[in-house]
């Protein structure tokens, strides 16, 4: 049988008549989740883990902020997201110009084509959290920095290196604004 979830975990959204059930494996509701993605062995793709580590140290004393870093975003993260008031996704971008910082809202969206087994995007994770747990964060933003290189390597390109201070500032301002 399914266990009823603790009321503090999830907020109901919409007007669906479906009974809401969920399981909390962690009992803490997160006010702000920072969720980064990247591979530290792929040059600029490692900027997500780098910024996650920066955020973890920056907000170490703040229990309202949770920082997670993954090489890939997988469907099991949907509950973490559904149980967070605000989510800031961090990734590098192959579409933006090298070093270009973008901060933009993310909306839930089902995958347009097939596979979603080993990696899911931010819109898909939001959609999955909504479908599984009937909950969406009040705020969901994506911060990206355009990658200069994703070749094998452990160093950032000059463009990304130069952009990191501004990205840190954007993260700090966003998080502090969400926390009021």
């Amino acid at each position, binding site marked *: *049988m399914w*266990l009823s979830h603790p009321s503090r975990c999830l907020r109901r959204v919409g007007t669906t008549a479906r009974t809401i059930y969920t*399981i909390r*494996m962690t009992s803490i509701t997160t006010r702000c989740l920072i969720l980064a993605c990247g591979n530290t062995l792929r040059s600029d793709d490692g900027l997500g883990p780098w910024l996650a580590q920066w955020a973890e140290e920056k907000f170490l004393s703040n229990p309202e902020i949770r920082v997670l870093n993954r090489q890939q975003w997988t469907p*099991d993260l949907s509950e973490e997201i559904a149980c967070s008031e605000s989510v800031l996704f961090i990734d590098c971008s192959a579409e933006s110009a090298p070093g270009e910082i973008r901060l933009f809202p993310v909306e839930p969206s089902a995958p347009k084509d097939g*596979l*979603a087994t080993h990696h899911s995007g931010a819109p898909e994770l939001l959609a*999955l959290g909504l*479908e*599984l747990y009937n909950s969406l964060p009040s705020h969901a933003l994506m911060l990206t920095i355009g990658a200069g290189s994703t070749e094998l390597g452990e160093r950032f390109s000059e463009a990304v290196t130069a952009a990191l201070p501004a990205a840190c500032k954007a993260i700090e301002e966003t998080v502090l604004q969400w926390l009021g």
Partner: protein
Amino acid sequence: MSQTITIDPVTRLEGHGKITIHLDDQGQVADAQFHVTQVRGFEKFSEGRPFYEMPSLMARICGICPVSHLIASAKACEAIMAVKIPHTAAQLRRMLNLAQMVQSHALSFFYLASPDLLLGMESDPANRHIFGVVGAKPELGRAGVNLRRFGQHIIELLGNKRIHPGWVVPGGVTEPLAPAKRDEILAMIPQAYADIALALKAYKQIADTFKAEIDVFANFPTNYMGLINEDESIEFTDGALRLIDSKGAILEDGITASRFSEVIGEAVEPYSYTKFAYYKPLGYPEGSYRVGPLARLNIAKTMGTPLADKELVEFKQLAAGPVQSSFHYHHARLVDMLYGIEKIEQILSDPLILDKHVRAIAGVNRLEGAGQAEAPRGTLMHNYKVDENGLITWANLVIATGQNNNAMNRGVLQAATHYVKDGKFTDGVLNRIEAVIRTFDPCLSCSTHAFGQMPLAITLLSADGEMVDQVIR
């Protein structure tokens, strides 16, 4: 004119594979092959490394079952050290291995296979994924997400990382279990029971609708191999291997890691980087066998835990002897998971589980060592040779997917022969042929390596597609 149908890549697998189906002049299936097209070469580039680095190096082979490689590798190193690890370390490793099995099986069943099982083999390919499952059966989607996280979270609690934890080392583990972590794992267990019960019930409700697939999804007699305890109960981490024939008679028993290479050989085919394991006394291919959940349940007389034992009794009623259709891997996988949850709960009640003595220390006492364990997909064996300074001079890994390779190829041919008629096929037919491979849940990243002759084919084609030369080595 003969034709070749190629399915490339085969989807919802761990790694990249390809299937080719060869048709004769009448458009009937003449042959079919499953190719593993990537090579990793871990055995070769581990040469020269200190043996104690091997568990961490070998775990990098795979992001799905690194724990199995950690354990088999550490056991091979312990054979070189000639040590027996402390009881608590053995129990903690057993729990880690079971947690990995649960999370890996959850990925296989819920994420990879359930789109076919719940939405149908003929369903819209654009919807055949975990999101489609969640849309159709949200309660099962939640169960899958929960069970995957159950296993991953235990791995993270024990090893401090979800993937590639460095906690398992030659001689034991690096740190004991903290009481708070034990309590956190225990708190997750009731929900895990609820989730696996839901999955078993749902599977049994739909299994009968796949009678046609059960008949032709690698449904033929083979031998089976898996780890087993002295009391004939299922085992994942210790014990010894048993090999049975297609009627259930024991071919070989008590196969320890040090005897593995005496009993098991590896053949090479030119179309795949994965080798083909076989039982030496029967030769290749007659000595081919299957490993993994189906083999484990065919071999075990008991699971050793009450709920899984009830499921084992029901599972064994599927056939008079060993259950032969690979479709039943799905069912066996769920029983494995139930066992894993129960066993983890049992291990946590061990009065010595919080003991601080979790590592044995020793240097090089033997120049060769082998270790074996059950990975989620089946038996895994690591074998190393070192020089007097402990540097690796030779390594060989025998991976579950290689041991299932012959059955996978035969299974593809069986399904293709049944479904492909007159050179015509539909998406549903091709999906069924892929689904045969999916029942085995192969890990293609793990299964390719450089040992002995590398099966490499180079084909030279003319502009109009005619082959003018081919080199095979």
